[in-house]
């Protein structure tokens, strides 16, 4: 009975928060579609789903996300091997650098790719600007880090002995890879791939900046329908479609990810020396690094360029509002707002994430208890898959009247961002907490430690680093969040990503230059945070 009480106590807070700030807005959004005028009218939704444009948008979403996932996995696997298994000098720094794109603000990446692929860009001759290829490249740029981190972490802790046993039985390196290593890595690869697909399918900022109106995914289409066409019913219909697909996918991923024994002792292999057989993998890693570095380099170079040559003009202009009064507030003020918001979002996400992680990793004594914990685990992962646009729009239409009236509250944006960051925090903490052998706590208890004392003795020393890493992640994610924020941030109090999007939407060379400079500032801030996180050497960082 006491167990259930603790469970309920721990669960109440996060469930309430997610309920009010996630389920309520999303269901409010969905209700708009099914109950357009207060009466249940599902035909409208069905009508929307049969529109040819919707089918086109849905297909475009699926194939770009699919292609980006496949490419990310194919390029990510060799890189994961090289960076996690070989004694490559400087591999730690490279790993940290590769993590930066993942948390870069989507808008920044969009800007960088347009600069790279645009007519005047270094790769302009390819004529890829505004094509689906550019979108796929952008998605790969973002998500390859996820594959490298998740698979690399699994690979690093993979016991090398089964592979050695196979080699001793006569298996060539290729045969070892196909018969032993790949099957062992499959859960990690599948889970990384499904997460990447999810991220790609719900990508917003990158598609919006690279695809414009011509190429739309479900996510950008929802945005378009709500902000430009005011077709709320259609937007709601698409949200429902996305929700269903995402939940199905998450369920599938969870099933495929299920590994019999998560706490099984795994020995971390020492990185081995580079051999001649590693050259192909090394070459691919270099290609990956080049692909990741090119847009960022172009962005940085572009930010220092004006018509008059190299200068800091774009950076100096950040204290102003741009040409033709593109903005209501100076960019520097937006930066302050961004940081303040991110700090708030971080502590919220951390507090909730910690409660959730403890909740879902505690050992269950009964089957029903285990089931309850499983359901809660899935419940808190929902924000991962639901489009930020849906969430943001849902906030607008449901939290503007009692009992929850937050229309003018400064907390609205941080709360939305915290929800977006919550799955990141949970996914960073859960593997660590799950890896603690419960018998350690039992040993502490048997020596006379109270549950709280046992927590301090056993869990805290293991969890404080991942906790710091998780806060870094939450901070970075919130700093770059664009989907929900674009709805919720007030015009006179925007965050930097919103400002950047405004700037590239306004004509004028200075505005574009300012967008680049602001992007560099934002990317630099995120990169610093991520490098600090990497220094914590948390093995499971970014492993979903």
């Amino acid at each position: 009975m006491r167990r259930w009480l603790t469970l309920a106590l721990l669960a109440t807070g996060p469930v309430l928060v997610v309920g009010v700030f996630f389920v309520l807005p999303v269901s409010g959004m969905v209700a708009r579609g099914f109950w357009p005028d207060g009466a249940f009218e599902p035909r409208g939704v069905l009508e929307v789903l049969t529109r040819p444009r919707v089918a086109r948008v849905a297909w475009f979403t699926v194939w770009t996300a699919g292609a980006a996932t496949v490419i990310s996995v194919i390029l990510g696997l060799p890189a994961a091997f090289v960076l996690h298994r070989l004694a490559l000098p400087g591999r730690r720094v490279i790993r940290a650098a590769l993590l930066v794109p993942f948390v870069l603000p989507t808008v920044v990446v969009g800007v960088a790719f347009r600069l790279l692929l645009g007519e005047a860009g270094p790769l302009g001759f390819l004529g890829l600007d505004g094509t689906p290829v550019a979108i796929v490249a952008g998605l790969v740029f973002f998500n390859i880090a996820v594959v490298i981190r998740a698979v690399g972490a699994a690979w690093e802790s993979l016991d090398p002995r089964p592979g050695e046993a196979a080699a001793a039985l006569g298996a060539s390196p290729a045969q070892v890879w196909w018969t032993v290593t790949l099957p062992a890595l499959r859960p990690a690869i599948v889970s990384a791939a499904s997460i990447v697909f999810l991220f790609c399918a719900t990508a917003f900022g990158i598609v919006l900046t690279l695809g414009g109106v011509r190429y739309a995914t479900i996510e950008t289409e929802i945005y378009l329908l709500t902000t430009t066409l005011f077709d709320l019913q259609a937007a709601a219909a698409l949200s429902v479609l996305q929700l269903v697909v995402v939940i199905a996918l998450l369920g599938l991923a969870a099933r495929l990810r299920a590994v019999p024994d998560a706490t099984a002792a795994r020995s971390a292999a020492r990185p081995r020396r580079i051999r001649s057989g590693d050259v192909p993998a090394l070459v691919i890693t270099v290609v990956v690094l080049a692909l990741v570095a090119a847009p960022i380099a172009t962005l940085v170079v572009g930010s220092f360029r004006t018509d008059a040559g190299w200068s800091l003009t774009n950076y100096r202009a950040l204290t102003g509002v741009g040409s033709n009064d593109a903005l209501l507030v100076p960019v520097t003020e937006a930066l302050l707002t961004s940081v303040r918001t991110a700090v708030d979002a971080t502590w919220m996400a951390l507090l909730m994430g910690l409660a959730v992680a403890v909740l879902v990793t505690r050992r269950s004594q009964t089957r029903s208890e285990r089931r309850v914990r499983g359901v809660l685990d899935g419940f808190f992962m929902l924000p991962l898959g639901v489009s930020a646009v849906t969430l943001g729009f849902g906030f607008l239409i449901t939290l503007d009247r009692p009992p929850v009236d937050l229309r003018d509250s400064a907390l609205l944006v941080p709360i939305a961002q915290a929800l977006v960051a919550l799955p990141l925090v949970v996914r960073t903490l859960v593997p660590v907490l799950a890896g603690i052998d419960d018998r350690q706590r039992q040993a502490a208890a048997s020596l006379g430690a109270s549950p709280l004392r046992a927590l301090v003795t056993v869990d805290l020393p293991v969890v404080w680093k991942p906790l710091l890493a998780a806060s870094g992640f939450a901070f970075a994610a919130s700093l770059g969040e664009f989907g929900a924020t674009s709805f919720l941030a007030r015009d006179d109090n925007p965050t930097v990503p919103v400002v950047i999007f405004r700037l590239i939407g306004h004509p004028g060379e200075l505005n574009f230059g300012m967008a680049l400079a602001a992007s560099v500032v934002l990317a630099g801030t995120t990169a610093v945070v991520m490098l600090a996180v990497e220094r914590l050497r948390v093995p499971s960082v970014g492993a979903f």
Partner: protein
Amino acid sequence: MLTLTDVSVAYDGVMAVEAVSLDVPDGSILAVLGPSGCGKSTLLRAIAGLEPLTSGDISFDGRGVDRLPTHKRGFALMFQDGQLFAHMTVARNVGYALRLRRRPSTARVAELLSLVGLEGYADRLPTTLSGGERQRVALARALAVEPRLLLLDEPLSALDSGLRERLAVDLRKILHAAGTTALMVTHDHDEAFQVADQLAVMREGRVVQSGVIDEVWSAPVDEETALFLGYARVLSGSAAATVLAAVESDGTSPSSPSTPSSPTVAAAQGQARALTGGSASLAVRRSALVADRHGPLFGAVESARVTPEVLRLVVEVRDVGLVDAVAARDSHWGPGETVRLSVDPTRIALIGADLPRV
């Protein structure tokens, strides 16, 4: 025949294996015995091709294999915990090497499973097996393609003692039946005796003694080796001489099955006088001294402990000091009582004497 010549392996400049030279003749089983951390596992991994050599040569049948990658050496390696592939059934594990060579054969798999006594286990998954069963599967898997050399890394130490003993006997039988040349490393001298015919004792990266197992056993090269081989105490000087003299005077004691003409006894007796006042010493097993009404040694019982087979005594023997002794299971000895002891010459060994060694 496997030949190691001055094999050295270093980790980050620290020598783990130093100038090891060994031969394993075809069809024989060599046990490399040593305490944990002595470098024996590193040696095994080096032979398998999993660790690069710092210097020295490894050759098989006169042909160098140092440059061959693991999978081309034809040496099967069996790990301490089996390392079965968890995602494959028992049959697929056993047939793995056969499939690699593109000649899968369910008949051969069945034959191997029956060789290790696991008929009917073909479709089980490794996680459903007990530790002993897993080791048997690992053995069958290693034997599948008749490797020219089988490397065993502490094959039995993960098992509990009863099972270990049974499996050790089976292992020896299976290896001899298959005619496999094998090299196994272990820290357990019982395991080594039960399975191997050749023994190499390793300490701090070096082989300190090697040879036919009985010879090594009856003539340990130094005190540390003797203790590691399972001798309970090492006596020196007059204590050793007293015990040896007891052998001489009582070579036909009813409790000692050997005749005085057995090489061990003859050698021991030959050295007896030389020992008095000398620096050589004598290793005695726990059961070297036996309670015997006609025994030449006298002592006072310090403590007695009943075990399933014998009564184990600790006795303060005159001119010798504290030693272990055994008495019949049904005899009764209490502390303080005086006991007469005879010496079982097969359970003592001279150390450091100029014994003829092979």
